[in-house]
């Protein structure tokens, strides 16, 4: 059985690339990028239909400002679904509006992280996320 990896939900190609590249230096599991909310949902439905290649991730990073379906709506859907609601979700966004932060946590986000503008800091941030969620934290088994 394939080990559980990370689902990156991110519409910005470069951001997705940076998150994936940085994480893949540390983990060997599958890292998937969904470009918007709909893609992410179809990823989950594939798994639920019994597609053996699609494994539920053990961590999700989620951008808030996305086309088609924005991050909040998707967050709500994931946290409402029995199968996916236990997966930790890290909001990774550039918006630091207090209202958005509050709303994200209300909807069940597990963490809210700002994308730094500087690349070096950006990499450090993602590495910290990796350390925290992969090395320190335990998450529910499937």
């Amino acid at each position: 059985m394939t080990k559980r990896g990370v689902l990156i939900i991110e519409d910005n190609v470069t951001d997705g690339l940076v998150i994936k590249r940085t994480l893949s230096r540390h983990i060997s599991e599958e890292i998937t990028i969904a470009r918007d909310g709909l893609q992410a949902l179809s990823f989950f439905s594939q798994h639920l239909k019994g597609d053996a290649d699609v494994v539920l991730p053990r961590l999700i990073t989620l951008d808030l400002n996305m086309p088609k379906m924005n991050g909040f709506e998707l967050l709500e859907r994931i946290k409402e679904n029995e199968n996916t609601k236990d997966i930790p979700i890290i909001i990774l966004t550039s918006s630091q509006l207090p209202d958005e932060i509050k709303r994200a946590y209300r909807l069940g986000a597990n963490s809210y992280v700002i994308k730094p503008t500087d690349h070096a800091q950006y990499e450090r941030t993602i590495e910290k996320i990796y350390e925290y969620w992969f090395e320190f934290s335990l998450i529910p088994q499937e």
Partner: protein
Amino acid sequence: MASKDSKLLFAFIIVLISALLPLVYGGTYVDAYVEIALFLAPLLGFVIGYYVMLTYADETFKHLMRPLILALILWAMAEFMWSVLHSQNTEVHFPVAAEALYLLGFLLFTYALIKALKPYTTSIPAKRYVAPACISAALGIGVAWYLFSVRGVPLGEDAGYITLLYLCLDAVILFLTLVFAVSSNRGRAEPFWWYLVAFIIITLAADATYGIESVDTEYLLGEMSNSLYILSYGMLLLAFITFSSKEASTLRQVEERYYTLFKHSGAPTIMANTDNTILLANEQFEELMGYGKEDILGKMKWPDLVDAKDRKGILLMLNRMQNVGTGKPLTRELMIHKRTGETMYASVTFSFIPGSDLVAITVFDLTQRKKLEMELKKINEDLQNFTFTVSHDLKEPLRNISSLATYLKRDYEGQLDEMGVEFLSMLVTSVSTMSQLVDDLLTLSRVGRKNVDFSFVDLNALIDEVRQDIEKIITERNAKIVYHDLPKAMVQKTWMKQVFQNLITNAIKFNRTNEPTVEIACEDHDFYFEFRVKDNGIGIPAEYHDRIFKLFEQLHPREEYGGTGAGLAIVKKIIKKHRGDIWVESEEGVGTTFIFTIEKFFIGEA
């Protein structure tokens, strides 16, 4: 003028005719001198009083004088009746008509005094009524006791109760005149009132003697009571004469002028006392606020008209002002509630009137200006939102460029020649500078945004926090930050931290000594705090003292000291939000002191 002269002429003719009456009627009466004097005294009083009233009295005093001079005519008529009765040697024990005239005169006088006092009842503190009430009651009761108990004047007979009635009226009038005398609400007691007091006390004595006369018919006593009456009229004359004295009339005219100014200045104005009760309001104020005199005067307290959010601050400030007593007026923009429930932005000026408990409050409606200001503010906000959005949206591609340039450098460095590697490094540096600029722009636009909460913050603790935040640069440069006894102040905490962080960082950065030292001190002024942030750095040439506060203005090449040139612009914007100001004193090579103020009693965001 002609009308005044003709009025006076008319009065003289009446008096002349009246004066001739006893000659026609009672010329046979032997002891008529006293009678005639008693008759002529009130007539003379009438003439002089009438003249003074027409010449010197303002509207308020005319209300008082008219009944008073009318009373004098009545008294003259009463005296005339007496003298007629005497001259005819009629045995009338109790001349009802004459006494009725006397009484009517006194009642008129009382009425006039009460009416004159009424507008000021609210402005005279209750304690000022105490002494006059005690004195007049004690005198009235004392004399009554002496007459009826000691001298045995028969209370049940005509002369008894007429005397009692007089004593009562005398006591009431004494009380009223004393109230005026001890607390002339115009800021000083006038001799006019003291002569009136003397008049009524002597009248009281005369009435008492008159009472005794009914049981002790010695000739001397009758003479004495008459003399006292004449003397009392003399006091009235003196009162009128002082009234016409140059100083008094000038003062009255000046006051009248001020009152006219107050009434017709066009500026909605009220006068209030120390417990904020409104005592006077001009028509413009009533019109502006939609209230009538009856709703306001003596009933309404002006802070009730101020919006709750501004109320506490302005009261604190006024209280402070009164204690300090600078004598300068205070002007603040406040939100005012009209009777209709509408709110109005107004510029409100408070001026304490020296030597009194009064404060004059003038209200200028700024609604129209505020509307324009709001529009401007809206445009400004839009612009700020635009800056915020733009700088926010700029961050994403910048971050992407930064990432891609880093990957390019990291992964493909071997495939580029030396020049290519150099260009890549320059690209990374530029991107880093630009993201710093964008970050500063974001901070600056955030200061302009709403939703800020001001609170009382201990600035010693605040600077402690700042010191921890910038610990790195402090240790690197071996810097010293000196401060103590900073106050608690009403600030927006995050912003104020930013102010101190920017100023302290600058002070350490632009410093070539081995031990950069930053001293922070605060001076406590009446209405504001003045902070001084002093360093021993490189200093700023005088010609740049204004320019440094402009956005992206840098005196030194970025390569040398870093930074974007937005720091002081941010500081200035934050200080302005605290209703303060910032400026700099500096000498090249010696050091720089940044001085800024923040308002103590914060009323709304600037």
